[in-house]
């Protein structure tokens, strides 16, 4: 399962402008995390609590997706299914247009994997 997820997230993991890719379950449990830069660990710690709050709003349907700007990074939260949320931290070198397309493609492919 983990390998399948890693394969699906490959376009994001290989992108130089992306500092980390994670999938959180709606209760805040990290299901998959790929961190590429040590420097973002501080941001990750800070984000842990913020992510839980955002996931709560995403679960309740008050937010359909979220985007946060933190210093030179942008954090994208995009629901993948009823219970899983994709989280991507990207620096300002990234093409946001390309990133949105990648995330959308991954979301569509992911849906066929999460239904049991």
């Amino acid at each position, binding site marked *: 399962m983990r390998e399948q997820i890693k394969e699906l997230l490959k376009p994001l993991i290989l992108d130089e402008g992306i500092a980390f890719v994670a999938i959180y*379950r709606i209760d805040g449990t990290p299901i998959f995390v790929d961190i590429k830069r040590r420097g973002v660990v501080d941001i990750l710690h800070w984000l842990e609590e913020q992510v839980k709050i955002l996931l709560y709003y995403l679960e309740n349907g008050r937010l359909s997706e979220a985007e946060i700007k933190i210093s030179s990074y942008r954090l994208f939260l995009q629901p993948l299914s009823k219970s899983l949320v994709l989280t991507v931290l990207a620096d300002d070198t990234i093409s946001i247009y390309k990133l949105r397309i990648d995330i959308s493609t991954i979301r569509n492919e992911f849906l066929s994997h999460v239904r049991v």
Partner: protein
Amino acid sequence: MLKIPTGIFGLDELISGGFVKNTVNAVLGTVGCGKTIFSLQYLLQGIEDNQEAVYISFDLEVKDFLRIARSMGWKLEEKISDGLLKVGRFQVEDSFIDSELVKFITGKDMRIVIDSFTPLVASLETSRARNEVNWLYKTLRESGTALITVEEPFFGTAGKEVDVPLILADCVIQLKNVGYGEAYSRTLRVIKHRMSPHLNSVFPYSILEGVGLVVEEKRCEGFEVDLSDLPLSESTKEKLYRYCKDGILKPEEIQKIRRRLI
């Protein structure tokens, strides 16, 4: 370190071969995550390995225990009458020392399950809880390898009845179920495993009738199997076919599932 297989399909690979012998292992989880089924699989494995198996509950009568096993497709009545499995229901007491419970679990190389351990600790005075649990764990370790289930509160924060058993246990496995029925709705995580390495991650698992808990991780090359003779629902068979094809279950485990059902 001597290890004993847990009986949970896919778990032994995550904890380097199984539970360390003569340890106390805790399964933590909220209502409905599969703690009792986990316990049953652990006992079934013990019976198949010729170990004396003991199940202790403060809630379930023997007939309730057998009913749960039967709902999974496992008939344990004969195991009890053959003396391979002892099932005991106890009243909660304010001290374990010299209690009937301790006499029930005294032996050598046993597989002991206490399901659930939470009422036992809840009845103890806070100041004595740690010492009492420590003493009981020592007795359990001397008698064999124990599995205790600990109830995680659905709402609110946990008290001593959760903290103390987990702090003193040699291994803690957390089961979680968020109830969305998707992949990763049910997850298993090894929080600690003293004296043995373990994998640090969150693993999806499922619960199937006639099978029990299956950790959904590839462990072998995929294979084809014929399950048409098994008394299982079509949806369960479909999942089993997929697990075999994806290498999540091994051929010998299919034989084990078959033996338990027939």
